[in-house]
Each structure stands twice: as structure tokens, then as C-alpha cells.
């Protein structure tokens, strides 16, 4: 019972973006007008992943990360309208970036499963224009 309550609370802030586990709206970049993913192509997933901050402090050697747990899982990279992939970082992972302004990481891509994960908190959700 208790666990369920916690889970519900956690999802609350994103509930309005999810319909039948999929992204209800199209996904856009937060900094530029680039459209990243059309609606309904991402599946909502709760996975904990330490994603580096989009802005890192200058002259700081360690990479500061943020533990995020809400992602849109995209099973095929060609489902994206516009997306960029970084060079591989470790064990076949690549960071996802905006294809136009290159801010990121907005998520990560796993070369083994070919699945991409876009952090809900790193993108904008809006109706198709």
C-alpha cells in the first residue's frame, strides 16, 4: 500500500503528459524550436539513470550528474524526428542531444538494446503545431 502511494506521488508531476503509457504530446527541445519526437512514439519508463547536467561548471574536472527516473523509451532511433548522438561513452552508451542546437544530454542510447531514453525533465512537451 505504502509503496504504491509513493509511486503515485512520484508520477504525479508527469501524469498529464502520459496517455496509455505513451507521450501524449510531441517532444521539443527546451532551447530551440527543434521537434524531437512525435506524439505516442515514446513509452513512459521508470528507470534510475545518472544523467550529467546540461550545463557543467567551467574549469571543473568532475562531471556533475542528476539522478533522473522518468524517461520516454524509444525502441527505434528512426522514430525520432530530429536527434543527435554523442560518440560512445562507456559500454556502448551514447548521449542524446538536440540535433539543432546540440544541448544535452537529454537522454541516452544503449547500443546493445538499440533503445533510446529521453528524460522527461530535459525536454518540452507541446501539442503539434
Amino acid at each position: 500500500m505504502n509503496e504504491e502511494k509513493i509511486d503515485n506521488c512520484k508520477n504525479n508531476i508527469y501524469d498529464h503528459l502520459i496517455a496509455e503509457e505513451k507521450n501524449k504530446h510531441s517532444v521539443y527541445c527546451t532551447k530551440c524550436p527543434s521537434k524531437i519526437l512525435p506524439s505516442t512514439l515514446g513509452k513512459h519508463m521508470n528507470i534510475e539513470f545518472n544523467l550529467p547536467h546540461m550545463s557543467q561548471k567551467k574549469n571543473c574536472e568532475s562531471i556533475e550528474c542528476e539522478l533522473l527516473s522518468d524517461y520516454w523509451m524509444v525502441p527505434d532511433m528512426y522514430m525520432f524526428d530530429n536527434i543527435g548522438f554523442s560518440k560512445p561513452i562507456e559500454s556502448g552508451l551514447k548521449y542524446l542531444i538536440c540535433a539543432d542546437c546540440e544541448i544535452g544530454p537529454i537522454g541516452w542510447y544503449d547500443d546493445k538494446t538499440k533503445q533510446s531514453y529521453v528524460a522527461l525533465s530535459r525536454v518540452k512537451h507541446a501539442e503539434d503545431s
Partner: protein
Amino acid sequence: MAKKTYDLLFKLLLIGDSGVGKTCILFRFSDDAFTTTFISTIGIDFKIKTVELQGKKIKLQIWDTAGQERFHTITTSYYRGAMGIMLVYDITNEKSFENIVKWLRNINEHANEDVEKMILGNKCDMEDKRVVVKGRGEGIAREHGISFLETSAKANINIEKAFTELTLSILNKTPGREPTDVPEKINIDRKSDRLSNRCC
């Protein structure tokens, strides 16, 4: 499994000397130096962009050669599957223009022979520093039967046009333009073979 969300998929490469602005051609807004730092230390592998041309939804997978600009490092594996190549030089850098011929030779040696090519003279916003006149770019393109454009990634001149033109030229020679058309074509060919046999 997943529904197909596009009609065609083209792989494009950006090739040319380092510093000619290939990476800049791939992005429109580069003013936020702070946020690009993190990704630029890792580097970009490729991008996927979606365009609509002649009623077809086309996915472009665009690869940048940044960091591997020396001829010997770009070989067959890099060109594999490439359907279009943007060959870029910098109008303010004579050497980068002279190297276009070397790049063309490299492409001829390693890439698929029917790959669509396009030559871009980049940084055309820097008129005061120009050392390669437009006519020379046009000349070399004509000589090799390739289309040519002067571009500026910085001022966003002709970038969109370059991608559209290259994509269109690939689209126009895509057999049947749709995968479903291909088997029909083969059938027709077989029929005509049989007919010609009968005639003989």
C-alpha cells in the same frame, strides 16, 4: 513490431579538411558556448533529421568526420552505405580547396560509385577574407559533374538548400522510389526476357 514512421532513409556524410566548418553545417544555433562544452568534449557521432520532399517523409542520418580528417583514416568502412556526400571547403583557406581533388579521389576509391556528391564552399559570409573565388568552386564542380553551392553555416546561407538538393538528387534516382515497387520491376524485366526469348 513498431510501425514505420518514414518512407525512406538516406545516409549522408560531411567530408573535407578540418576547420572548414563541417560541424557548423550540422547545426543552426551555436551561440550557447557554455552548454556545448560538455558534449563537444565527447564529440558527436551522427544526427537524424526528418525532411518531407515530394510527399515523402525522409529520414536523414548525417555523419560528420570531425577529428578524422586525414585521408588515410577515412576508408571503405566509413563510406559504407553512404548515399550522399557533402564535400566541404573553406573559401578563406586555399589549401582546403586544393584538397577537394584529393577528397574526390578518396571518395572514388572507397565509396559506392553511384554516391551523390555535392561541393560546398563554406564561410561565404567572410567576403573580406576570401581567397577562393566562386568561379573556381563552380569550375571544379562542373569538371566532375557535381552540383555546387556557396554556404555560410554562421549566417545560415544555403545550408537548408544544400541538404534539400542533395536529398532530392538521391530521391530522384532511388529505384521505384518505394521499396514495394522493386519486385514489380523485376517481374516486368523477367517478362520482357521471356518475350525476347520467344522472338528468337
